[in-house]
């Protein structure tokens, strides 16, 4: 109990967020009751979360360094598209179970490899050319989408083998494979950020990259690594996306970009960098997904959903502002002139 209190005490955003989550939960339980907690509903939640979750993790990583990665969605799509060609038998025919397995393995590796390359491109532009992250990733976002369009001419790549589809829709003990994968990723990222030197350096970079440079840390390598990992996570998102919709095409997931930023900010990530925890982002995601499925149950249109999200985003930021203002107007440690 004490540990939990200590956890919350340190980070006021986290506590505000948890309160909101709990409230939303409670309200929904009261209104929806059994319908919400049905196995069906929870399971469908568990299927929907990972796709977006990987993207949110990627966005969070970039934002911790004070930057942003606008290219994660098109990265995922592009990687998915290229990998999909192996799955449809366009590269080599899938006329035996061995060939199919090989194709799946090659496809997965290719997707991850492409996504890593894309992420590294971002990192190089930002670290070696000093391009502001928003511009660099805006450019690569358009570039990746462009490559995808050029390759597919807008048509989707369809026709994946059964075995691959099973990954996207299969489960063990009623828990989907992809959800387990996602939880693993969350645990790894969490440890990476809070317990390793690499993670420490990321937070320090976001707080003051000049000072970090003066500390002797190779900041260029650090940034390239960060955006590469972000790309890597986007690659996972790509795999999950194509295994869920059984096709790969440009333009899927356009709305995810803004949602990812939303979720990160909601989760306490400071857009200027240096602050933010996985736990917060996860809470933010939970709130969003819960609302999302609640809306479906209420039959809200996708636009009304966006309305609520936009409203919540503004509300949270305004509340943060008010809290911060109250905190600094009564200074405890007087700053001498």
């Amino acid at each position: 109990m004490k540990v939990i209190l200590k956890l919350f005490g340190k980070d006021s955003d986290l506590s505000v967020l948890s309160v909101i989550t709990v409230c939303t939960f409670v309200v929904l339980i009261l209104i929806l009751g059994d319908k919400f907690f049905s196995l069906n509903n929870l399971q469908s939640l568990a299927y929907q979360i990972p796709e977006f979750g990987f993207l949110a993790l990627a966005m969070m990583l970039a934002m911790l360094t004070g930057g942003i990665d606008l290219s994660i969605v098109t990265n995922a799509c592009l990687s998915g598209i290229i990998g999909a060609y192996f799955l449809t038998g366009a590269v080599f025919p899938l006329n035996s179970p061995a060939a199919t397995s090989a194709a799946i393995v090659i496809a997965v590796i290719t997707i991850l490899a492409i996504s890593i390359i894309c992420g590294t491109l971002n990192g190089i532009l930002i670290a070696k050319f000093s391009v502001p992250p928003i511009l660099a990733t805006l450019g690569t976002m358009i570039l990746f989408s462009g490559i995808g369009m050029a390759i597919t001419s807008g048509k989707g790549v369809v026709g994946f083998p059964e075995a691959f589809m099973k990954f996207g829709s299969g489960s063990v003990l009623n828990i989907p494979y992809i959800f387990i994968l996602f939880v693993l990723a969350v645990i790894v990222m969490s440890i990476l950020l809070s317990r390793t030197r690499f993670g420490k350096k990321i937070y320090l970079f976001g707080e003051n990259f000049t000072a970090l440079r003066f500390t002797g840390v190779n900041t260029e390598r650090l940034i390239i690594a960060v955006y590469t990992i972000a790309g890597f996570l986007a690659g996972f998102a790509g795999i999950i996306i194509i295994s869920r919709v059984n096709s790969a095409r440009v333009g899927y997931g356009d709305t995810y970009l803004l949602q990812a930023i939303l979720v990160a900010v909601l989760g306490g990530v400071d857009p200027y960098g240096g602050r933010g925890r996985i736990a917060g982002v996860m809470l933010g995601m939970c709130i969003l997904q819960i609302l999302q499925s609640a809306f479906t149950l209420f039959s809200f249109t996708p636009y009304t959903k966006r309305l609520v999200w936009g409203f919540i985003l503004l509300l949270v930021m305004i509340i943060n502002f008010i809290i911060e203002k109250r905190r600094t107007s009564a200074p405890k440690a007087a700053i001498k002139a």
Partner: protein
Amino acid sequence: MVMYSYLGQEAVTRLNQQACKSARDFLREVPRVEIFIEVHSVSGKYLQIPEGRLSILMDRTIVSANNITKSFVSVRALDNVSVSINRGEIRCLAGENGSGKSTFVKVVAGVLAPDSGEIVVNNNSYPKLTPIGAINEGIQVIYQDLSLFPHMTVAENIAMNKMVAVHKRLVNWDEVYRVAEEQLELIGHLLDLKAQVGTLSVGNRQIVAICRALSLNAKVLFMDEPTTALTQKEIDRLLSIVMDLKAKGLSIIFISHKLNEIFEVADYITIFRDGKKVGDFENKALDKKSLTYHMTGREVEYPRYRRVSNDDLPLLEVRNLTRNGNYKNISFKLQKGDILGITGIRGSGRSELALSLFGLNPPNSGEILVKGRPFNIKIPDDAVNQGIVLMPEDRQTEGLFLKKSLKENISSTILDRIKTKAGFIDRKKQEEIAAGSVKKLKIRTQSVDTLVRNLSGGNQQKTVLAKWVATGPELFILDSPTVGVDIGSKAEIYELIHRFASEGMGIILISDELEEILANCNKVLVMYAGEILEILTEKDLDKPDVGEHILAVMSRSRIVDSAEKFKNGEAIPR
């Protein structure tokens, strides 16, 4: 008044200036003078001035802040402070960090409202001012960051405040250029009106800031630490401008901690200490020692450093190091236990040299040998691996993570050394090292989790020291380590430097404060315009007039005489 509205603002200003000139001598003796102007009929198409007499009242005192008290939560920043600013004088506000001088300026400029007291300007008494109100009364402040618009032209920056104050909707570019040109002419320095301010040197930017302040008919000009970022030439230029403004009747108040400059330029020195005014002194009534005494309330003597180590192996040797545009042919040797001072005015290449030794400014040619072996230091990582560390000039942007805790700052340099077997960060070790550093360096803080931005300047600087000491460096380069640090912490930091050197570290101390160099170094390099002009050994530093000699070399004035005289052991005239 009828006459004023027909003559226009410029004529009034000129009239005021002339009146000032005539009145100044009188004002030395009496507090108020009335000037009568006889007007004979003047006629012109638009001019109609009635014949008769015009009188202008001139007071000696322009602004008088009386009994100002200001508190922040638990700290009394100003305690019943009264200061009068007279016409045509140059006054310096001196005092340590936290003494209240900056708060005082903010109160007079209308940025802060005092808890009690009054500000009297132009015979109007105000319990408090607003920024616009202060500007309207002729009070202008040039802050350290100058508050300019880097992507806009010189002309715009100068004329901007005036344009806004006049409330016009449309921009009259001809007017803008005219106002800017006028101000520049008044100052006597010409700049390209169409140049973008961001491309100008710091000195020229300051000129733009001064012009802007003057464009609104400033009567009192406050300048906060104006010479911090200037080269010697620019400092000279600034001081001549200040003298010129004084002759025109303006009063200039500057905040400075550079004792040499204070004595060179100020007519009066107002000393603050712990929120109270210690007193107003005439320049000639004070000297460095008494000034320091009033500022700190105690006699401060810094013990000299003497090298004790026996190990003469050169830790660092630099041969003919050159970086185009920064420095040329730098050669020197540094041994264990040496505290090598590198001094020179800004722009002499000293900080650039330090950055090169740390890998942030790779040299074009020359050699760096660490413990006898040559190394290429291309990035800070290389330097740190060799045991060379740097405490940078600007601790807030380059040295510290302000929003992080003491503990995190101290461990930021040793992240690779505090890992557990599993490769993660050893939290316990982190805590231990931080606590140890706090104790060793006497950092005053409630806990190692305090955010660094809440620490005082001295303690922040000690944190930067601790951060690097934790790595066990061989060579520690300190660039201006006591800027903005109170005298108490200063002494403690010097003590620490002596201790580190005695324990075998090699130290390079870069500073332009003579006292600091003399107290701490056993060897000194004097740089000017990128070259080493002179190397002073421990024996040289023992000679009596070494301080004056160094000053002379630094500013390259009378260098030939003083060098000869110095070598002969003769006294050097000031």
